[in-house]
């Protein structure tokens, strides 16, 4: 008869016999990129939603040994160093001895340090930990560059003793919101956990990625100087990311990494919103979208080869840009090219988009410019416009009658 624990072990083995399946995971991709970029990451998430499991997967992917330190069971001196009184303190000084995990990390030269449960640690411990995160120092030791640090905290509203970052500290982190995916959890408990394929940097893209990131951030900030520095004033936004020269530099680095790794805009969106905040982050992303759009001058130079974006709102932006370019430098050939582009837009998409640019372009005509033949083909846009005019008149008449 087998011993009771042997049967239990068999049952446990059966329970742990799970498989994995590939599945895109934006959170994990964002975390991987931020850690590769050597920026301190702060994961915000309720307890028990798989932050530790994610870190284990990340450590596997980056091939780094994982060291987990639960902040709440330590004392401040475990991070600031323990003063050890030697034979002659007046001559040798009092060394600050680091704890064993730090010594092992430094000896290994590389590793992933996960500081869990920051929010439940007493304030003095949190203060000591921030020095670890920001200055990478533990007592007399300095963590080597091969060590990457990730911290985790519970959201402010659920934290029992109110862990909160002051604005200068919040400004140094990449804030990532960690949430569980309902489907993943249900399927995982059924025996199949997801396996994310993590982004890899393409060595051939590095210099292009840097140039692209610099151009994107610099052009945006040149056009919008107010975005450079905005201290959070609202109580609801305290402790979160906000824009400053330092966090813009982090954003630049993240754009370069995201470009070199070819990750999706979703992942980049989580990252830049996590360093400069939602508003400025979205502005940067909108700017990147605009950089993807065709240049009006290129379109005007060769309208026959032009390809307009499919999406209506982007197409509208491009057409407005073309008309604006003609207005700035009105020349006969450019005016004709713009008409050709409008005809192209009409042939390949919705007619209502063409109405406003066509009207603006018509106004730009000089007396000696002949109306191009292409203008006849814009009749669809004209009839759409007329239908809308008539509808507006009817609405006007109806509300006028009621008054």
């Amino acid at each position, binding site marked *: 008869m087998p011993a009771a624990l042997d049967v239990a072990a068999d049952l446990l083995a059966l329970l742990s016999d799970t498989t994995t399946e590939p599945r895109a995971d934006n959170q994990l991709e964002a975390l991987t990129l931020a850690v590769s970029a050597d920026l301190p990451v702060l994961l915000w998430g309720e307890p028990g939603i798989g932050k530790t499991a994610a870190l284990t997967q990340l450590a596997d992917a980056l091939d780094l040994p994982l060291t987990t330190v639960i902040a709440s069971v330590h*004392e*401040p*001196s475990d991070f600031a160093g*323990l*003063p*050890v*009184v030697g034979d002659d303190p007046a001559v040798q000084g*009092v060394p600050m*001895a680091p704890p064993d995990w730090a010594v092992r990390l430094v000896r290994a030269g590389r590793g992933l340090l996960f500081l869990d449960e920051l929010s439940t640690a*007493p*304030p*003095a411990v949190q*203060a000591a930990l921030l020095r670890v995160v920001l200055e990478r120092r533990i007592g007399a030791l300095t963590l080597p560059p091969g060590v990457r640090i990730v911290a985790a905290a519970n959201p*402010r*509203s659920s*934290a*029992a*003793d*109110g862990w*909160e970052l002051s604005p200068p500290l919040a400004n140094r982190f990449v804030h990532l919101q960690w949430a569980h995916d*309902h489907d993943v959890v249900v399927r995982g408990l059924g025996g199949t956990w997801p396996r994310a394929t993590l982004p890899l940097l393409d060595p051939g893209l590095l210099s292009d990625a840097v140039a692209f990131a610099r151009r994107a951030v610099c052009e945006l900030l040149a056009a919008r100087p107010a975005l450079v520095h905005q201290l959070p004033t*609202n*109580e*609801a*936004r305290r402790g979160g990311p906000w824009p400053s020269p330092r966090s813009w530099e982090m954003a630049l680095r993240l754009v370069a990494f995201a470009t070199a790794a070819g990750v*999706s*805009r*979703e992942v*980049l*969106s989580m990252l830049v919103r996590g360093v400069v905040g*939602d*508003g400025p982050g*979205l*502005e940067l*992303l*909108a700017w990147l*979208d605009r950089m993807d759009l065709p240049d009006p001058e290129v379109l005007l130079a060769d309208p026959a080869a032009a390809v307009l974006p*499919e*999406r*209506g*709102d982007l*197409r*509208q932006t491009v057409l407005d840009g073309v008309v604006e370019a003609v207005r700035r430098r009105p020349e006969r050939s450019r005016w004709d090219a713009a008409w050709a582009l409008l005809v192209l837009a009409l042939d390949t998409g*919705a*007619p*209502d*988009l063409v*109405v406003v640019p066509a009207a603006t372009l018509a106004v730009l005509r000089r007396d000696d410019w002949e109306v191009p033949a292409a203008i006849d083909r814009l009749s*669809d846009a004209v*009839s*759409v*416009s*007329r*239908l*809308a005019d008539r*509808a*507006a008149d*009817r*609405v006007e008449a*109806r509300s006028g009658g009621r008054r």
Partner: protein
Amino acid sequence: MITLDAEKLYAARLHAVRSRPYLATALFALQVVESWRVPTMGVDRHWRCYVSPAFVDRTPVEELAGVWVHEVSHLLRDHHGRSDRFAAEHELTGPGERLRMNIAADFEINDDVYGDGLVRPEGAAVPSLLTLPDGHLMEEYLRWFRLGPHTDDFAWLDCGSGADGLDREWELGPGGAHGLSEQERDAVRFRVAQGIAGRPGSVPRGWLRWAERVFHPPQPWRDLLGAAIRSAVSASGAGEDYTYGRPARRSTALPGVVLPSLRRRPPRVCVVVDTSGSVSDAELGSALVEVAGIVRAVGGRRDLVSVLSCDTRVTESMCRAEGITLVGGGGTDLRSGFARALRTRPDVVVALTDGQTPWPTTRPPHRTVVGLFPRPRVVDEDDPDYRPDAPPEWARVVTIG
């Protein structure tokens, strides 16, 4: 068989854009999909707009324009995401509940989206049909009505999964062509919100409120006040200090190592309550219960929490479990309240006020949290330029309610 009258459909969109220029980006971002399965017009969460040719044929352009704006409003206001969250939170399943969400979402949109150039389409669902008030959010309406005979008129209602989060058979789904990714959807919503913030004058209040909150959902004041007080009470310097009084508990195990020892005395909290006539009892009651609860949760003993009622006079009352007596009713000068609070040598002062008061000019030695009851600005006829002072920089201010 009727073919889709694209000219009419796009003329309607043009009319919608002309009367609501701030929605242009969103309207143009919609991808039209002709469909015989959708009853009228519907949207999915990937910003595709399904259009029934028969519906376009029988609907006048000006009404179609209203439908365009209505459908895009579902997407801008994230009704599908909010429906999913509401359903998950309240464990609601089934198409009946989703129909209810569609109706509630329509209520939220329809009360202020029409007029001023846009015609309300025939049979649009408005709150007054169920004798509900205008101007509320979908989640509020959902609490107020159930499906029944009185909602039968809405049974045909179907704005697609973009309105209620329930995927329809005819929709193309996440893998289909021309969908917008999550980031693209956010970008469009952001551009619309920016457009609205850029010209607030010509935009209805419902949209203004949306633009303010779209990327910053308001946090409940209880959480904010709790976080502010907890952080003030537990921050270093309040009620704790290093001491040589007793060695650390680990010292005996580590000879030769000097260990600091952390001691903590419970923080002393003083709550200054503005009991002037302008603050209502209900407001005060809820805020005060909240403060007392938070202070107790962070380890404040009852004898260390004192409460001052403050109008022109200052009265002290002890915080008791069974209730707090407050005296007052006149005008306010919180400065005397602060001065009196200082005498209890508090670590933290929590002031609950409507802000119609002068503030101390110098920074007090304790941390200060102000719970502020918002007030519309009242114009003083004798002194029309009078503005009450804003709470000082050194206080953390949480707006209550």
